[in-house]
């Protein structure tokens, strides 16, 4: 059908006379439909114009009517935003359900073996055993999830200390001038496209860690979780530092004054008063950062590898949910194989996790807000 439409539009040549004739018919139908549409449009515009024009008079409350229109327009925009979100989630859910018709929920969420590619190659001898055992054994997402979490944990281990400390520095110690230099510099980091971080991870960080491993006698995979997680950590530093900075600056000055007035040093004030007061907000910032980290794709695609290893060893290569989705959906695939559908199940899982994290983050920072009116 798509072919026919394309022929009619003149994008491609008809392969045979039947097709050509059919395409001609379709083209004619489209042309007359276009004409009909133009005429209808003109008619509707005329009717609209004359109705409104006839109503125009100094007594007409045109301003009120325009305001009402604007109100509806804004409302509609909000509805569109919400509807598209719902639509995306629904289509995700729909495909995921189709997947779970083939593969049981239990196998997916608790299976410890992930190899969607082999499951579809019955001729392959290496995969033959698995295929006989059924495709179910190959869609266990635990190793993929484990890889995702490992990378996210490494990223947070890099980003939380650096981001938090730099936020403490900019909000509590830096003079106005230093602050005006440091903050924008950090925010430049946030503007670097993730694909740039990706090749930094793949071409610089990963070999660096491998060589470092050689020096200390460790066997570091050339696509280590360490490299991907480390670079991802660098990516979210500005995210954490700028959110934390906002949270820390939002702690009322009166609390600091109170602490100083009791004879606290600067450090005591920060550790014992400012940070505890900012704690819920900081937790919120960290949760948002985690949800960024597990949803991040480009860096891990380029640096983390594709083998679904069940490991918590950061020196090995792991794979993540996002990498697997990319693998499953790029290239030539039939669109409704189990393999493709599994990408939707993964996407759905990822979505639910980040959603929960974001809700938790929101609740945490709202609690901070309530505490100070």
């Amino acid at each position, binding site marked *: 059908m798509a072919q026919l439409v394309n022929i009619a539009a003149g994008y491609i040549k008809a392969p045979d006379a039947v097709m050509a004739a059919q395409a001609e018919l379709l083209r004619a139908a489209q042309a007359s439909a276009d004409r009909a549409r133009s005429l209808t449009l003109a008619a509707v515009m005329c009717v609209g114009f004359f109705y409104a024009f006839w109503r125009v008079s*100094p007594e007409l409350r045109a301003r009120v009517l325009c305001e009402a229109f604007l109100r509806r327009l804004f409302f509609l925009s909000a509805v569109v935003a919400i509807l598209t979100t719902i639509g995306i989630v629904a289509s995700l859910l729909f495909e995921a359900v189709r997947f779970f018709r083939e593969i049981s929920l239990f196998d997916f969420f608790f299976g410890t073996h992930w190899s969607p590619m082999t499951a579809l190659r019955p001729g392959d001898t290496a995969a033959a055993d698995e295929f006989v055992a059924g495709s179910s054994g190959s869609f266990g997402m635990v190793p993929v999830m484990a890889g995702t979490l490992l990378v996210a944990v490494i990223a947070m281990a890099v980003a939380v200390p650096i981001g938090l400390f730099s936020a403490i520095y900019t909000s509590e110690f830096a003079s106005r001038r230093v602050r005006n230099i440091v903050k924008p510099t950090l925010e430049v980091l946030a503007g670097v496209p993730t694909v740039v971080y990706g090749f930094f991870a793949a071409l610089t960080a990963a070999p660096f860690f491998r060589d470092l491993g050689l020096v200390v006698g460790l066997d570091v995979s050339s696509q280590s979780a360490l490299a991907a997680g480390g670079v991802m950590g660098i990516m979210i530093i500005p995210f954490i530092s700028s959110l934390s900075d906002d949270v820390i600056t939002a702690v009322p000055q009166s609390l600091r004054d109170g602490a100083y007035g009791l004879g606290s040093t600067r450090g005591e004030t920060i550790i014992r008063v400012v940070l505890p007061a900012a704690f819920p907000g900081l937790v919120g910032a960290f949760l948002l950062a985690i949800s960024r980290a597990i949803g991040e794709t480009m860096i891990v695609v380029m640096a983390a590898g594709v083998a679904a290893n069940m490991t918590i060893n950061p020196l090995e290569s792991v794979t993540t949910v996002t990498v697997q989705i990319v693998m499953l959906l790029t290239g030539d695939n039939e669109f409704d194989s189990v393999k493709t559908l599994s990408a939707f199940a993964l996407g759905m899982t990822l979505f639910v996790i980040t959603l929960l994290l974001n809700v938790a983050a929101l609740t945490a920072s709202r609690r901070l807000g309530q505490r100070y009116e």
Partner: protein
Amino acid sequence: MSDFLSPNFLVFAATIVAAFLSFYLATGRVRKQAIASQTKSHSLNQYYGFYVSLWVLVPAILLALIWMFAADPMLTSAAKARMECRLSEPT
């Protein structure tokens, strides 16, 4: 015919022109009426312009959207039906 001057684009352009035109016609009309009847209009003149332009544009846009989602798929499916009919005929 170049894509730029395709009939569909002309319709689109005409719509925009119509909207502007109606804006000026409407502001002109209300100004004249206000002078004639020696009253002050309820709203600024431009609101009457927006009001009429909206009446020209909004129904047209809605119609075009409906057409896009309803009429075009109908045509293609009709063609599809014809096609299947043709294919099932013995050749």
